[in-house]
């Protein structure tokens, strides 16, 4: 929860990770290259005082997660991504099984995302059904650009992908986060292409497609699709992190999203632990679009708009009643630690 001029802002971090990329879990040099690349994103865009050392970054552990998101980072509810990468990491990078352990300790604080790979065809459908039945999966995170055997990626509108999306919908899934941005093993342009979202969004009007990283560097293609498809949303992680060192581009990206999609279809995401929500939210809440950009685009980043982007939009997608959820969060273990800290701050 963030307090703006005495008003409480409900914060949903729409995109974050709890990974273990420590040396013990790395299977090969790719595992190292993977986390090193993440670290470069981290150090390239974080303010200096928020840059961690590489050891902590590889495997930061649960207490750091709880503190960076909830105790220090204003987050009320966080959407946990699941990524597997067994080829690089012995026990996986951040699997839904591992994510669920932390979710179970703080059930109201996390939304757990599962995943599927349509290239597993029939056998994968059973596995997917099992995952949906055994775990409290509320959303999906899909990576279309991943290599697998001879395949160099897949598309959301592949026939097998449609079978999985149909099954997901039958099992109550509403929200599908699609990774479209800097990626794993990117061989061809097709892997980055956002056009497949257009087909899937038309054919599955009951699903919401949150395009993570707003398709960067395909922001333009993403915007054209989103203007045509009312169930396509902007996931702003990576773009959000521009706010510190590249505020001009941040302002322009935000103005474009507000111009093409409007204030109801933009979701905050920190991409933690690539970046920490605290500094992004501190800066975002204090951020004003420069006058010339406001004038040119005819959009404003008012407190109301900020509130929507920070949490109201995501809460709506995930059916979270903000008032009720606030009440339940204030009574959980993290809520107790937050009250204790605030009482102590009040006393001193």
């Amino acid at each position, binding site marked *: 929860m963030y307090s703006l001029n005495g008003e409480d802002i409900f914060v949903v971090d729409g995109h974050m990770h709890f990974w273990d990329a420590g040396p013990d879990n790395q299977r090969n040099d790719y595992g190292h290259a993977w986390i090193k690349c993440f670290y470069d994103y981290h150090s390239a865009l974080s303010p200096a005082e928020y840059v961690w050392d590489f050891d902590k970054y590889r495997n930061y552990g649960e207490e750091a997660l709880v503190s960076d998101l909830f105790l220090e980072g204003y987050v009320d509810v966080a959407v946990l991504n699941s990524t597997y990468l067994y080829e690089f990491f012995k026990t996986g990078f951040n699997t839904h099984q591992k994510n669920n352990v932390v979710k179970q300790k703080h059930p109201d604080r996390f939304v757990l995302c599962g995943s599927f790979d349509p290239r597993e065809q029939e056998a994968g459908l059973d596995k997917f059904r099992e995952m949906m039945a055994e775990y409290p999966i509320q959303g999906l995170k899909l990576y279309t650009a991943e290599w697998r055997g001879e395949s160099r990626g897949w598309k959301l509108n592949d026939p097998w992908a449609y079978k999985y999306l149909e099954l997901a919908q039958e099992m109550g899934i509403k929200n599908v986060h699609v990774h479209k941005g800097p990626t794993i093993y990117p061989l*061809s342009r097709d892997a980055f292409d956002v056009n497949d979202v257009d087909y899937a969004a038309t054919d599955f009007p009951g699903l919401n497609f949150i395009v993570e990283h707003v398709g960067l560097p395909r922001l333009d293609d993403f915007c054209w699709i989103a203007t045509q498809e009312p169930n396509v949303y902007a996931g702003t992680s990576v773009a959000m992190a521009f706010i510190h060192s590249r505020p001009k581009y941040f302002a322009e990206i935000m103005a474009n999203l507000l111009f093409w999609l409007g204030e109801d279809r933009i979701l905050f995401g920190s991409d933690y632990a690539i970046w920490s929500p605290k500094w992004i939210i501190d800066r975002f809440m204090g951020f004003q679009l420069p006058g010339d950009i406001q004038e040119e685009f005819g959009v404003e980043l008012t407190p109301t708009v900020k509130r929507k982007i920070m949490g109201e939009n995501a809460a709506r997608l995930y059916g979270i009643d903000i008032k009720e959820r606030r009440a339940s969060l204030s009574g959980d273990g993290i809520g107790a630690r937050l009250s204790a800290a605030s009482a102590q701050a009040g006393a001193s």
Partner: protein
Amino acid sequence: MMTPAIALPPHLNREAVLACLDRVLDPELDESVLSLGFVESVAADPAGNVTVCLQLPTYWCAANFSYLMASDVRRQLAGLDGVRAVTVKLGEHFAGHEVEQGAGSGQTFAQAFPQGGPDTLEETRQIFLRKGYFARQERLMRVLRRANLPFEQIAALQVADVAPEDGPPSPAAVRVEARVLSRYLERRRELGLDCSAPAPLIVDAVGLAIPPAELETYYLRARTSRLALEAGGSLCSALLQARRSG
């Protein structure tokens, strides 16, 4: 911009070599690999065997774009007098070996990456040449808008109606920043579009004039394409800097 380490024999001219590299674009960003700082070093032996080392912003930069840059470096330098052979090396990269071998021996992308499916490299290049075209066009239109020209008037302009602001006397109605104009016309020519004096100044990627009533929407879209390229370039520069210092 990082200046590459350069070691050349006397018969190779430093400026000419740099000019070649400056013509090699990161297709996705529409900026030269030289100005992006991707060129780490250039060295040649007295026989004219040139080795260029490229360092891309991440280990995972897409293989197809990396391939385009490596083969373009080779092609540009191979055309220079006194160059016998060109080797391109990539700093740590997931597909570095295949890119170096394939681009170095003039293979097509599909030959170097047989598992990648049909060769769409040229198609990819064309897609990004067009994106770059929109970005360059947006910068030109932005200048015209700043000069208070309404869209209807911009739609009616011909190529002959604009001239570089520091150029010789000209009957052209509007003066614009020289680099903005030259970059626009350069890409327009590359796309094979008519650049003659009476041609409309603003045409789409296949050379059709934009109806005045549609120009504003066209401009708003070009504006987003320009931002996508610039923001991508900005992210890549930040990543490359972090990679070099870490």
